[in-house]
């Protein structure tokens, strides 16, 4: 096993390398500069020291102004990274993201564009309660003009974030807080992971499990558990949620004839709905069983550990749903 790093290190390195390579890369967000601790969980530690507080700016607690400032600078040659501490706080800046950042290229007839990356963290499991850990990626996937990315390994976090920063359109980069300190193979410095390309994490023949972000862990454990009961599951990490890599999914499901989508977001009207709808349409005559979906229960994230655990998708649920496609 080669060098290991966690997500915090990989994301920090990606920003560091991007800022070193391109002086137009900026970072704006609450507490991001070292004088403010280098981020509430130190993801941006050292960046203001290395690149100065002109380029790495701690902001007031004003998400709409943070995103607007990043957007405006992006219109005239900068490649800003706007850090919105937690995904639920995007609700405060939705106008700038949806009505402006995502639409300006189209509404200007291509005269302007917004090469901005919004980094945000989220994810349940820590007892933060109902307003700090929602998974809202489906909202942004429903908006034309913005890309949505969610890594599940430190190396992908590095390579996808580098690609987002260099992308000429607004990208929403979603980081999972509970797994921030989980180790994985270190990225090769400079590597880019292309946007819009899923990865087949483990090959299988009986059922395709499609997931992304934090639930790749549960899905991976489910794949092991399934193999023990003789079921060969293929596991796909979407990595980019919008635009998503339909081709890789279809290629896999053509082989397995069965599909299961797993995500932390609540199931109804989630990302799994679009994937299930597309797969069901494209492979209507191929599918041997209905596409299954596993997500969190449809309620606010509860505080009590007994409830939070029951709310989140479990390995057992994934295993059972996979088996259901084979029944």
């Amino acid at each position: 096993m080669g060098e290991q790093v966690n997500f915090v290190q990989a994301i920090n390195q990606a920003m560091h390398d991007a800022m070193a390579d391109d002086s137009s890369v900026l970072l704006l967000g609450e507490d991001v500069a070292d004088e403010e601790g280098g981020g509430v969980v130190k993801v941006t530690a050292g960046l203001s020291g290395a690149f100065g507080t002109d380029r790495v700016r701690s902001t007031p607690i004003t998400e709409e102004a943070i995103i607007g400032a990043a957007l405006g600078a992006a219109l005239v040659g900068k490649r800003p990274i706007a850090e919105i501490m937690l995904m639920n706080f995007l609700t405060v800046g939705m106008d700038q993201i949806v009505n402006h950042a995502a639409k300006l290229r189209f509404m200007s007839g291509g005269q302007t564009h917004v090469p901005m990356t919004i980094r945000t963290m989220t994810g349940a499991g820590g007892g933060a309660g109902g307003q700090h850990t929602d998974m809202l990626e489906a909202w942004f996937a429903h908006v034309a003009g913005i890309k949505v990315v969610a890594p599940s390994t430190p190396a992908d976090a590095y390579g996808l974030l580098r690609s987002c920063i260099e992308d000429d359109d607004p990208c929403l980069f979603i980081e999972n807080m509970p797994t921030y300190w989980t180790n994985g193979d270190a990225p090769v410095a400079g590597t880019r992971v292309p946007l819009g390309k899923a990865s087949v994490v483990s090959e299988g023949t009986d059922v395709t499990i499609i997931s992304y972000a934090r639930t790749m862990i549960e899905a991976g454990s489910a794949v092991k558990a399934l193999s023990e009961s003789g079921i060969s599951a293929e596991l796909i990490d979407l990595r980019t949620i919008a635009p998503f890599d339909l081709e890789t999914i279809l290629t896999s499901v053509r082989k397995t004839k069965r599909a299961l989508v797993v995500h932390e977001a609540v199931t109804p009207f989630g990302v799994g709905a679009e994937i299930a709808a597309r797969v069901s349409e494209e492979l209507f005559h191929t599918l041997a069983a209905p596409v299954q979906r596993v997500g969190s229960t449809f309620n606010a994230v509860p505080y009590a550990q007994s409830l939070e655990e029951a709310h989140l998708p479990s390995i057992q649920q994934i295993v059972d749903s996979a088996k259901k496609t084979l029944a």
Partner: protein
Amino acid sequence: MTNDNNQAQPSGSSLIAIYERAARIRKNDEAFHGAMQSGKLGIRIYYSPRGQEIIPSALCDHLTDADYLVTIYRGVHDQIAKGIPLKALWAEYAGRVTGTCKGKGGPMHVTHPASGNMVTTGIVGGSLPIANGLALASQLDKDQRVTVACFGDGASNIGAFHESLNMASLWKLPVIFLCQNNLIAEHTRFEKGTAVARVADRAAAYNMHGIHVNGNDPKAMWVAAKEAVDRARSGKGPTLIEAMTFRFMGHLIGDPDEHWREGEKEAALERDPVPALRAMLISEGHATEDELIALERNLDEEIEEAMAFAAESPKPDPKELNLDVLAGGAS
């Protein structure tokens, strides 16, 4: 604007009541810290109000259970001063079904309408727009209730602050915007996030009455709160109070609390408001050492009982996930 000194001052019994609230908050804070270190109750997150005990303790001398409070994640001092029962509070922190919110809300969303604790939010700025709505209902019903929205200095920069103060002033709502200025927002110092020297001066941008006060001075805070409460009850409209204070224990448990500059924290701790009030009660002859010891012993017992209650209480059953989502959940 500062306080006008001809105003009524707190009586000895008011000062003792303020101390009792502040001491309850402080002892409860110590007990929460203890419980989190031992880990036995399973409290998962906690934003300590240490340093800010006096503000709500003085405020609530002017409020009844009928008055409304909307506070924030760092709001346990406000909740306790407003009269939330400690048993249900501890059970909520411990994630038990006997908690104020059945363990569903937790520390950032403690709610207890019976004591006027209407909403606790984890969103910076989220408390202010809701407070206007509570005050609007009171204005329509002419029920003489006062609504208090608590928030921090950092929150005075977010859009919700601006929209809420503008609306409250236009409509002369019976609401008090209580900015607890501890000079720090998570890890960002006040002057780094707020472009004005005094949050209270922002009241002028809404043609609103503003008060800048030392929130850790029980007499000054009592006077400021009285002025604002009287204005609200008598239909004179909203007030913005900026109560200066300290944050002694970091943003949340586990935070290294590194924002202080050389010597700042030591100087602040010398002015730790709860012991200061205790000394004042004795030096001014409002209470004897023995009386305070008795009072404090009762608080210790109250907290012991609350801890025990939480420890014995059952955890919520997973079927609770389907309840309280929409009406009709059998709950």
